[in-house]
């Protein structure tokens, strides 16, 4: 008699006509699997197929092999979007992780007001990215925005936040950092609070300075949490759309065009689904490649050391 059957009270439930086999497991899971197929796998597969066709509502959709991919990889607009995406991802993730760790260490201390600070940290991640985008659009408006008004108060020159290509990219990075650094803080805070105290106490007894304790003990112990944080942010920055769309729509002149924004413009302005799908898959491939590097390189190093 199986373990499951032993736990059943005799006579209370009818015995199922199906035996307890792996086929039955799949049968019971099939509704969920079907839903997954319909809403996740099918659109992914369909758009992947679409990326090999000239799919632009012109009636016919001829197969063009990797034409959409090569067009984009050698295209000026794609390369501009790729450059923006790289700067956006690298700069915003670096700031978010470094600032997130620093703030987490700070609020982990037993200082006055830290409980309130931790609560306030929940606010930015709770706000919808579209609202963040709109707020920053107005904050950075040269005529009416608060930021330039403050600069004028101190007799400093106005900064064309959203009108100058370089400042526009800085502005969308600032908005992203504002929204996502608190999330990093919360992740790191949870990690810090679960660290074993013995090594830290031993190091204190041995006369280690706070910086030595952080660098040689806390940071190595926090590595798994940092890796998860990095993974989440890498995936997220390659999906960023709302904030940029509402602040600049990728402008001026494509200066803040990220891969998602460029893909949207191709699909809904240029009505060119084939190229839009190709750009989406290049972006997906890039984020997977970066994640593979992130996890694969340390694994390879560890393996080599073990040999």
């Amino acid at each position, binding site marked *: 008699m199986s373990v499951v059957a032993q736990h059943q009270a005799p006579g209370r439930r009818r015995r199922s006509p199906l035996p307890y086999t792996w086929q039955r497991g799949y049968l019971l899971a099939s509704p969920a699997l079907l839903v997954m197929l319909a809403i996740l796998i099918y659109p992914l597969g369909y758009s992947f197929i679409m990326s090999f066709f000239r799919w632009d*509502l012109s009636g016919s959709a001829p197969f063009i092999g990797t034409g959409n991919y090569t067009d984009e990889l050698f295209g000026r607009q794609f390369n501009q979007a790729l450059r923006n995406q790289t700067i956006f991802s690298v700069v915003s993730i670096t700031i978010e992780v470094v600032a997130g760790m620093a703030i987490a260490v700070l609020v982990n201390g037993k200082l006055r007001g830290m409980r309130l600070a931790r609560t306030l940290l929940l606010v930015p991640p709770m706000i919808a990215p579209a609202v963040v985008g709109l707020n920053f659009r107005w904050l950075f408006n040269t005529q009416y925005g608060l930021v330039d008004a403050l600069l004028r108060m101190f007799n400093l020159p106005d900064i064309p936040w959203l009108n100058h290509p370089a400042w526009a990219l800085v502005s969308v990075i600032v908005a992203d950092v504002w929204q996502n650094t608190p999330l990093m803080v919360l992740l790191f805070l949870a990690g810090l609070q679960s660290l074993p105290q013995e090594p830290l106490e031993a190091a204190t007894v041995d006369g280690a300075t706070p910086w030595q304790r952080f660098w040689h003990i806390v940071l190595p112990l926090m590595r798994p949490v940092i890796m998860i944080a990095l993974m989440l942010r890498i995936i997220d920055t390659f999906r960023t759309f709302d904030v940029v769309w509402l602040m600049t729509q990728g402008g001026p002149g494509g200066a803040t065009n990220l891969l998602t924004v460029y893909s949207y413009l191709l699909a809904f302005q240029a009505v060119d689904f084939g190229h839009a799908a190709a750009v989406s898959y290049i972006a997906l491939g890039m984020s997977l490649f970066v994640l593979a590097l992130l996890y694969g390189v340390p694994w390879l190093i560890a393996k080599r050391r073990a040999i």
Partner: protein
Amino acid sequence: MSGNLSRRKFLAASAAVTAGSLAAPWVARADAKEITALLITGGPLYPKYWEKIVQDFTAKTGIKVRYDLLEFTPLTAKVVTLSAARSSQYDVYSTHTAQIDSYFNHFAPLNSYFSDAELADFYPVAVKYLRDPKTGNLAAIPRNMDARVQYYRSDIYQEKGLKPAETWEELVDVGLKLTGDGHYGLVVPGQGDPAQRTFSDLLWQAGGDWVDQANKPAFNSEAGIKALTFYRDLIQKHKIVPSDAVGYQWNENSTEFSSGTVYATFDWPGAFATLSNPETSRIVGKWSTAPYVRDKAAISCAISHAMALNGQSGRKDPAVEFIKYTVGADAQRLQFDQFTNFPSSQAIAKEVIAAAKGPQATWLQQLETTIANGKEWPKLAGFSKVCTLMFSAIEQALSDQVSPADSLNQAATEAEEIMRRAGAYD
């Protein structure tokens, strides 16, 4: 019998609900006396307008219309998505001249539903650019005209002894005299489609055009470079336009004028109603209208909001009946009364112009002149994608990233390749 829901009953009920929801669209579709429409909205009055149109249409024909309303940008995105999916969810779409070339294969031709006499009543510029140049098929029928005139602060101009600009030079001169103390002489949009529209007007005024006789890109001609240089200089050199305009679309453009910060702009017919309403304007009674400025020519865009029949529709006849009603005399008069939307029917336009008095009559005359001389960019294969390219090219020049000449030359090379690939020269 137990009141508890047994697993068998639950599964049976779930199956019934699933089957019912799957069958519902077909059951609904079977009713030939009901059609579906995806219609444009914008502002608080539009829903009431469509409600009245639909009620009147149903009372007259017995055909029910189930409709959804969306603003222009989400509406465009939804029509693109539904067309790509070859959906028959809606029989009728609101559409626009701007992207009509993308739908030539998806909207059913309306030629056979309108007689030559009926078509002759619509403004020729509207009908011309709603046709597929390759097949001659009419992809949509114009519902109201979109053209721009100059709106200026008559009180400030009078105070400073100025007249509204008629030429490009005067636009700069007047703008310089009005700019200062947190105010600007002019506002123009500088982002996306609105930036392309503005460049397009200046291109035609400078004597240029989008393509040459062979349909090859010609917007990088001397006239094109002059137009984009003038456009950029309004913002970057003369500084008579707020620097934030590089990120402005139509809404921001209109708001800058209606809030009183800027003293002149070029705006659509809807602005006449918005600026006259104290709830949406701080300058009620302090503004007037004048013709659009000119350079070598006095040309600007004349486009139209239009109605289209979904090629996948299974109820084409009642759907066309609805389309005809929405572009008919009653609907056009109501549109004008409600939103001052300029009629697409020449007969109705004459009627409203004759009935108008004072500043409204002057404004309508100015609009009609713009429409009579108006143009639109070409509806060639691939031109929608060229537009996306142009947004970026114009914005790059306006924000001083590259020179107007470099920006337009680069865009022209890429545009030719895009149109060649899309079959514009086949």
